[in-house]
């Protein structure tokens, strides 16, 4: 269960995030959508205690994230390349993250084996540092590393961006498999409405920091989102 209450972030007088109340029950997969500047990454960063909220708090399984670090034990995330260590090979990076999450080498190897398809033979055993991998391959490493050690909460910021079509489809399957067990809370942001409605049970729409829509995904959700995001266009056409 993740709860945000009265959460705001203000930069130089501009409110970039303003969420009065948001509950994410354990085991739910929630998609965060919104145009650039909607506050998606800000929300994730506050949830990971990387930036301080101006007011309010986020509770991750009853732990106030800014006051106690224990949430780190069951929360994993991949936001951007600053979550990768450029001078490590992918294997070393996985083992390092494994060490932090109390997984030994064998555990990590076993997990990696299940991602063989996803890696498409471009990641493991290449004797290359992460900094020398392409953006897409770096992303694959970051996403898989976030799944190490059976975390209870997984946060992925725009996981579909930069991935090739095959990998996007595989990633969708991975996320669906995870959510099917109803044990892991997954928070994903994306600009791709089709992907996100496909993998998330719930979609939250942010606009300039405000929570404007909160939908449980159904067959009508995609249409509703498309209508919402094209409203500016239709308005102009009517004029």
């Amino acid at each position: 269960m993740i709860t945000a209450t009265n959460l705001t972030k203000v930069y130089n007088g501009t409110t970039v995030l303003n969420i009065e109340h948001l509950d994410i029950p354990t085991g739910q997969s929630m998609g965060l959508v919104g145009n650039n500047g909607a506050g998606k990454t800000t929300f994730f960063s506050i949830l990971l205690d990387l930036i301080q909220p101006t007011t309010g708090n986020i509770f991750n399984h009853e732990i106030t994230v800014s006051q106690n670090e224990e949430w780190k034990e069951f929360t994993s995330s991949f936001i951007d390349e600053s979550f990768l260590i450029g001078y490590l090979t992918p294997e070393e990076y996985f083992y390092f993250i494994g060490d932090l999450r109390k997984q030994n080498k064998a555990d990590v190897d076993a997990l990696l084996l299940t991602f063989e398809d996803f890696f498409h033979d471009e990641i493991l055993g290449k004797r290359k540092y992460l900094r020398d991998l392409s953006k897409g391959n770096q992303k694959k490493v970051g996403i898989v590393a976030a799944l190490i050690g059976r975390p209870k909460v997984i946060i992925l910021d725009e996981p579909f961006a930069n991935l090739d079509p095959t990998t996007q489809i595989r990633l969708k399957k991975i996320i669906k498999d995870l959510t099917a067990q109803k044990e892991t809370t997954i928070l994903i942001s994306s600009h791709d409405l089709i992907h996100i409605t496909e993998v998330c049970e719930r979609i939250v729409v942010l606009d300039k920091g405000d929570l404007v829509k909160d939908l449980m995904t159904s067959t009508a959700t995609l249409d509703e989102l498309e209508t919402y995001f094209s409203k500016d266009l239709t308005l102009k056409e009517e004029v």
Partner: protein
Amino acid sequence: MFKRLFSLEWKSFFRSASLGKSIGLKILMGFLALYFTAAFLMFGIGLYPIIIEYFPGEEPIYLVNRLFLVWLVLELIYRFLLQNLPIMDIKPLMLLPIKKRKVVNFVLIKSLYSFFNFLPLLIIIPFGIFNIYKQTFSTGVIIAWMIAMIGLTLSVNYANFIIKKNFTDNIKALIPVVVSIAVIAILDYFKIFESSVWFGKGLNAILEFPLLALVPILIVIIFYKWNQKDLESKFYLDATLKDEVKDANTNEFLWTRRFGDIAPYLQLDLKMIWRNKRPKTTVYISILFLAYGLIFYGNDTYQEMPAFFIFVGIFITGIFMINFGQFIPAWDAGYYPLIMAQNIPLKKYLTAKAGLITFSVVVLAILSTPYLYYGWKIFLINIICAVYNIGVNIPILLYSGSFNRKKIDLDKSPFMNYQGMGATQWIVGLPLLLMPLLIFWIINKFISFESALTVLFVLGILGLILRNRAIGFIAQRYKRQKYAMIEGFKQSGE
């Protein structure tokens, strides 16, 4: 077009994220520049009278000519160490409709405005004016000579870029160059083959046939064209990216396992040091600095000042501690959000850093044991300085690290690299080096040498006993500063 490129350069300087923050550093650099300007100008003005005074009977300009080769070699060395290629970020310009040659020319001509080209003028011009005033040679001849001198300095300017480009990535390839310069120098020194004299005779010829001044100009043009060709051929993305992808070194540092739960962090730090240019060079510098003692221990001037040996001892055993420790945690700046969001207790993270530095101090202390040659006092001082470093200075450095807000680019060379430097680095130097010196000096003066050393030793041991608590306290401070640090490390900039 040139004007526009210059305005780009101007903006990149004044809009860089760190401009305001590093004002203190800029002022220091300004003072240094002023100092060197003054020093060179004084030398330039004084050169003629000095030669008359100390080398009576010598024609000053002939003497200068004879020594000029030595000067050029020195100039090449300091330029190699200090002067950077004026490659502005040309990547974004590649797609724009600007001719390659224009960008390349811009980069090369911009290099002429370097401070390093300005300094020699301060010697050549006053010395030339003196010669004109004395009228041993006609004004025209001296002007030709001055042009030739400036030409030679500029040749060094461009030759340095060629050398740098071809050798910086591969230090081993430099060995033949260094060896041949050394051989020429030795032959010269033992008067077997005096290249400097022959070079001087060549320069004297200019005084007889002023038109020969065109030769240095020609050399400049040749080097310029060479650079131009070189840069143009490298004006491709893959040419600059090509040598980056090296086969990964997969040393696992498995022996760190025995350190228990800080092992993953130790491994990470060791990999960071071995696989990145800047920290790796820091290690080499530390080993070089072991020789620092040679300058002082044998020197009679310092024998009556044992306090000075404390300084040397702290420095020798702690050079890695200082060079590496002052930039904690900026070394990890590139992935600091990961460190903060992952399951990494700050205390363990800091303990691992302290462990690594302790290890370096111990190794350097062991490597410094040959100084026993200079007597047991020196040896004892070094060992006690090592203990003091481990106990007191490491926590001080870790604490000062919480003030770091500047990112470090791991792949840049540390020479004259002020990236990551801020007021912290200057201020922390005081307690680090001066405090033990002061403590020792006072006690040594009023009580005795032995008790002074004992106090330092006890302080070190005390620090070691209290380390766990100190690190706990420091971790609290890192926690409070974490948001500012994450924000600061995100900014790129020099």
